[in-house]
């Protein structure tokens, strides 16, 4: 007697249903999408695209928000709205590269440490521990200060502080997955170790990483903004939000709009990605898996 197929909802439709039901993911996801769209469409959205570059307008400095300049103008007359819009390209781009490189370094190291254990694990994790011993911001600061200030150095400096967290995260997951019976089955069946690591362990270890990445976008943006604020990152005329806040500091009490709008942009972006990450964590939490 052959047994017939049970009909059950697929895993992706279950996840999609949860996405729709979760307000955090919806709101955070909306912010993320908006930021990306703004970044892509910046030339179309910004009324004064040249102001995002090196244009200056000495006759229109420090104008308050008005119909022609929604966010006002800064100390050299540039339209702040245009600069904030173009700034959407800068910070998220840094975040993208930091996370990409950190993953490229951290994931293989974590997989190796978690799967092989023993000496390899010890060697990798001790090096990782050294980096983890420093607060991320301080470490990034330290490296940024010895490099010539630019967006590239910011990216590099933050990456150096960031990769160990992914290594540790993946290592824990990889070790736990490697102990599961289906990985043992693969070994018993003679499947090669490389294949086991990339085909079986990685897909099953990556879920917490997805959550972590969403949360980290906000974190990297904040760190990059801090570095720019301190003058160690982007330089004028780059429309980096952190740099804009820094440049507007001295005008804060009288011309509040120089600081407020870029500051709000940082806040909303970081908050949006944090909410997305929190929402994703709730959805992807394995303990919530529906039993069929």
């Amino acid at each position, binding site marked *: 007697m052959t047994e*017939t197929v*049970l009909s059950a909802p697929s895993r992706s439709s279950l996840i999609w249903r949860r996405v729709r039901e979760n307000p955090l993911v919806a709101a955070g996801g909306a912010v993320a999408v908006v930021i990306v769209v703004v970044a892509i469409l910046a030339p179309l959205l910004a009324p004064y695209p040249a102001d995002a570059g090196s244009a200056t307008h000495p006759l229109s400095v420090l104008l308050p928000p008005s119909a022609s300049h929604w966010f006002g103008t800064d100390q050299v007359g540039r339209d702040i709205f245009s600069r904030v819009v173009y700034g959407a390209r800068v910070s998220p781009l840094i975040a993208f590269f930091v996370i990409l490189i950190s993953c490229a370094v951290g994931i293989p190291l974590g997989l190796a440490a978690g799967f092989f254990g023993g000496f390899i694990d010890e060697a990798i994790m001790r090096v990782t521990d050294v980096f983890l011993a420093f607060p991320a911001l301080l470490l990034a600061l330290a490296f940024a200060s010895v490099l010539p200030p630019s967006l590239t150095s910011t990216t590099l400096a933050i990456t150096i502080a960031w990769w160990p967290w992914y290594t540790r995260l993946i290592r824990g997951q990889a070790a736990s997955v490697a102990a599961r019976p289906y990985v*043992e089955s693969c070994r018993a*069946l003679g499947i090669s170790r490389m294949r086991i690591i990339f*085909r079986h362990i990685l897909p099953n270890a990556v879920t917490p990483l997805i959550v972590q990445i969403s949360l980290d976008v906000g974190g990297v943006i904040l760190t990059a903004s801090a570095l720019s604020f301190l003058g160690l990152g982007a330089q004028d005329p780059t429309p980096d939000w952190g740099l804009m806040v820094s440049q507007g500091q001295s005008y804060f009490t009288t011309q509040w709009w120089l600081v407020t709008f870029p500051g709000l942009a940082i806040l909303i972006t970081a908050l949006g990605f944090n909410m997305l990450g929190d929402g994703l964590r709730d959805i992807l939490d394995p303990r919530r898996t529906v039993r069929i």
Partner: protein
Amino acid sequence: MTNLLEIRDLRVHFGLVRAVDGVSFALPYGPYGVGLVGESGSGKTTVGRAIVRLGPAVGGEVLFEGKDVLRLRGRALKEYRRHVQIVFQDPDNSLDPRMKIGDTMAEVLTTHRIVSRRQAAARVRDLLEEVALDPAFASRFPHQLSGGQRQRVAIARALAVGPEALVLDEPTSALDVTAQARILALIKRLREERKLAYLLITHNLAVVSELCEMTVVLYLGKVAELGATGELLFHPAHPYTAALRSAVPEVDRAARLARIALAGEPPSAVSPPSGCVFHPRCPLCIDRCRVEVPVLREVAAGRMAACHRAEEVLAGADLSLVRDVMPDGAAAG
């Protein structure tokens, strides 16, 4: 006539713990079943894992068709894996939850180049049908199957390489009784169709009696006795076997035996008792048992036991224990 698998004096130690301490038995060519029976701490799972080279071994030999497999590496090890496979106890976790059933099985086929990628789908269908599953399952994920169905997929996957021997580690312990009955029937059928030899690791004596010609009883890493299943269960030669048998609950009132209670608690593997490892709990314990380790010896035709008083047990000695002692070390034996 050589045996398919011969385990000789196998030892597996984890630090101070002697999980397996000198186990020897043989698995003949199929169709044939050997039951490896014991309770927790007996070392039976460790033996099974050592045979399929999933666990370490510190001593002894495992001979497959006469050649020791414990020191194989690389390509030779991968080749060995085509001949001896394992099915695990936990059906919930023995399949990758993110891979479709068909892909999981095709992976095995392509790893060992049993068929080309194009032919893999057809072979997967054949294998699923062989274990009485609808071939449409190939496009499903493990969580969409019941425990019994997942276990069948695990069996089909193990059979994909065409092994001569299977190690079945508690294949039905996590299943409902009806699913268990179906799996046992499946094993019986596969046994004949494929001339399979299998090592059935379990604590369930009834399952062993139905599926295994021979049984090996383990206690704390050592063989207590081994022999033809029927004779072993109905005329045991070791007090532990008798106690184990008497403790098995039976639906049929007529089949129930008077329970032989054992003193004390299952022992610790870190500091095993001196002499016979079973002596602190044994109703027939004498002074000799406390000092001298009994050797596994032939006590009847085709029957081996590691007990100084095996002949008496075989002859039906009374093993009942008077229960007025406090088994946890307070009173004398």
